[in-house]
């Protein structure tokens, strides 16, 4: 039986609180963004997404950060060609707020996801900031169906106030230009 619903569900606003610290001791800001910290970061991010802690995931982004899933391989920019997802901060907040809604019918029932992240490399780094590349496999399960997504993720990481934040994230799905059923889960 469906749960009794209030007529106008209140959707919690995504918090603007600071980035959730990584497990263990928070690294000091002046430390270099070495491969170990970058790996730790993407594992942490994947865990937040798999546990549907979207609010905490949003908090990983800088206040002017953006998130992009192109619709074409090698897509040059998100402005002249459509994207599977392209959110500036304002749209990302809207997306995350919607994910919290009990009236999001495409998430009734909710998806469950499981991600593997690996092959992390630092593409360029200026000590306190770095662009990293990683590979992921994400399985989405919902209503007796399992979908498999895989591809390459690019993160621009910056250190702010002793924590690491995402200045931008680009996710290149290997099947970005395929005919896909609706996508509700951030990658």
């Amino acid at each position: 039986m469906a749960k009794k619903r209030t007529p106008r569900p209140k959707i919690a606003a995504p918090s603007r609180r600071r980035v959730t610290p990584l497990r263990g001791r928070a690294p000091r800001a002046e430390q270099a963004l070495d491969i170990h910290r970058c790996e730790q970061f993407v594992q942490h991010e994947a865990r937040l997404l798999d546990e549907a802690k979207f609010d905490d995931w949003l908090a990983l982004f800088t206040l002017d950060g953006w998130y992009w899933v192109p619709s074409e391989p090698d897509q040059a920019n998100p402005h002249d060609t459509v994207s599977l997802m392209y959110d500036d901060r304002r749209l990302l907040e809207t997306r995350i707020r919607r994910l919290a809604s009990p009236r999001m019918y495409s998430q009734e029932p909710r998806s469950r996801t499981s991600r593997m992240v690996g092959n992390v490399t630092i593409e360029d780094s200026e000590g306190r900031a770095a662009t990293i590349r990683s590979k992921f496999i994400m399985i989405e399960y919902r209503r007796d169906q399992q979908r498999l997504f895989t591809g390459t993720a690019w993160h621009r990481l910056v250190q702010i106030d002793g924590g690491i934040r995402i200045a931008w994230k680009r996710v290149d799905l290997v099947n970005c230009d395929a005919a896909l059923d609706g996508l509700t889960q951030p990658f």
Partner: protein
Amino acid sequence: MSKDFSRFLKPGRVHRQIYTDPAIFELEMTNIFGGAWVFIGHESQIKKPGDYFATQMGRRPILMVRDEEGRVRVIHNQCAHRGAMVVATDKGNAPEFTCCYHGWTYHLDGRIKGVPLNHGYPADFDAKNPKVAMNPVKRVKSYRGFVFATEAADGPDLEESLGYMTTSFDDLLDRAPDGEIEVAGGVFKHGYDANWKVYFENLCDAAHPLFVHRSSIEASQAQSDDAHSDGTGEIAVRQMRQNGAPYSFWESQVGIWTYPNGHSYLGDYHDDSKLVAALKDPVFREYIAALEKKKGKEETKRILEVRRWNSNVYPNVSLMSQFQQLRVVHPISVNRTVVYTYNFKLKGAPEQMFRNTVAFANIVNGTGSLVLTDDLEIYNRIDMGLSSDGAEWLQIGRGYQSDQPEAHGGRKGVNSTSEVYIRNMLDAWVGYMNGGHGQGGALAKAAS
């Protein structure tokens, strides 16, 4: 199967079987996707001789191609030898087509160019016989750059079949300061597990946004405007908020118009002057100035006062002229459909206008958007529900008694939540399925 398909309709009701029966689907592929004028593509997708665009006409793989003389051809993407699909890429440019199996080659219009090993065939085999070809679709016609084709050798001409709906294409073109448009910005391909008809039956459904899109309405309404934005999605956020207009808005301010052969549009919905905030948005102001310069103040005013939301051109294309988008429905099987969504550039409009079009598509009509995803879920649920004979006859009767005749041979809902446009499409459906054209279905019978 008994011949008269009007048996699936009753006043204000339709039988669920037409969405689930594979035999009915097979006949639709012949009678509707073969018998009606089916939208293929836009001429701007094939600019130079040799340019081709591979698509589907129902389930048939076909090519829209520009031949050496610059004429637009629509041919079956199938080899005359053993039937292999010849072109396997979405688009490109080629001087000729070569089949990968035994190397038969074809001119751009589909005629045979060469047959290797052209000996040993029966005496009556003649590679020059025009019937041995990548066969052209029987009739091809374009309306102001929008290419349609039909396998029906005779029957109404394209313009006759479009009727008053030509004005929706005019509206899209009128909005371009230079009077020209161009397909640009890539394509969204999205799929769902249900019948193709439910997609069309949702596009002008003004009763659903407030309910189905509640999560995006509330999320956008609660979204503070001062979060950082690069300008992306400004219009889309407003649109999501607008979806939350109360039923009284849909009942008193929006309208639904229908025309013969299954066409319809939802009108008076998105008011540019209010929602795009024409006076405050510098891009829109720049656009209006460009329009006025080319077309004059009076004409610009007239153009912007045409306020059509979705225009459904039966059976497979829906046009959104205000945001320069176009959706093409490709039935895959009785319960699987893929929809392609394209955007248009208005030539002579500021570059940022097109970027707004792209942003709108991403947020509202995209595969990972905040709006369309809930529609896709509804289609899936319709299919899951329709497998049950608990409700055999579905209700499509809202507005049945209050619909009014419309000046151009159609019917108009007394307000936008009338299901008149679903009844109108099903009327055309009966007409085609009975082996005729889009008219003469159940509604016409009831009216006579």
